[in-house]
């Protein structure tokens, strides 16, 4: 059973000031998913077009403290699969500097 007090000390990866509706469940879900990462891990988040995407990254602002990418509506996973492949290739060539969760 996780300890709520401990969890509250975890790094905030998704910040306030975004434009999601009051009461929307999505930001809660995002926060709790990202809490499950270790604090020293870096994530890449691929976001499909939708409420979460349009409300959290309006140029020139972003709510995301990890790398975040949006390309289109139907292809968040396909986009991410390319990022994952690039990560593996760059890792193989020893061109990476920091750890990123796969």
């Amino acid at each position: 059973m996780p300890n709520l007090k401990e969890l509250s000390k975890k790094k905030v990866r998704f910040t306030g000031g975004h434009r999601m509706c009051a009461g929307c469940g999505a930001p809660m879900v995002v926060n709790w998913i990202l809490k499950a990462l270790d604090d020293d891990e870096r994530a890449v988040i691929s976001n499909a077009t939708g409420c979460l995407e349009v409300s959290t990254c309006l140029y020139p602002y972003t709510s995301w403290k990890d790398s975040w990418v949006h390309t289109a509506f139907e292809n968040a996973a396909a986009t991410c699969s390319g990022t994952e492949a690039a990560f593996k290739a760059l890792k193989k060539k020893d061109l990476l500097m920091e750890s990123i969760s796969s």
Partner: protein
Amino acid sequence: MLYVCYDNGAYMNTGIQRSSATPYGADTTTSPAGKVKQGKEQFRKDLTEIMVAHHIPYAAQTVPVIPGTPYMFDLYNKAEKAFKITGAKFMNVLTPCPRGWRCDTATELEVVKAAVETCFWPLYEVENGEYKINYIPKEKKPITEWLKLQGRFKHLLKPENEHIVQKIQEEVDRRWERLLFLAKVK
């Protein structure tokens, strides 16, 4: 890669259009309840089962953190587990959209709770093909407990639509029984 679907049951961003994830009977802007139709005419596509069918190492279904419930940390636990597994992982999170569901923001988590307690949205996970149900309600609530809290189902509670509610109940029961079987609970 962990794929997280926050399932709010419609295309909410464009203004609440029906999607394959929209529950049967829901009143949306492209499946409106009218004089001859009573909302969406298909049952909800079971995305979690579709992902299970891909035989990925981990697929799970869960809900946001709801304090005071036995499954308060279900979302967190599943995310933590998923991040540690290598390969394609999937989580389906029933996520309230007060505008689309037409429910009260202050009590929206009660609606999600009703989804779990009626077995409309069972909490379970499939790890390497092994099913595990994470929460079995002591007493399964009737589906009306979930329907009555949301404006999008209001029309279904009229006496003349009782047969639709019955149809929804039967489908929820069928899927729940199937899940109990797959998880070897029954």
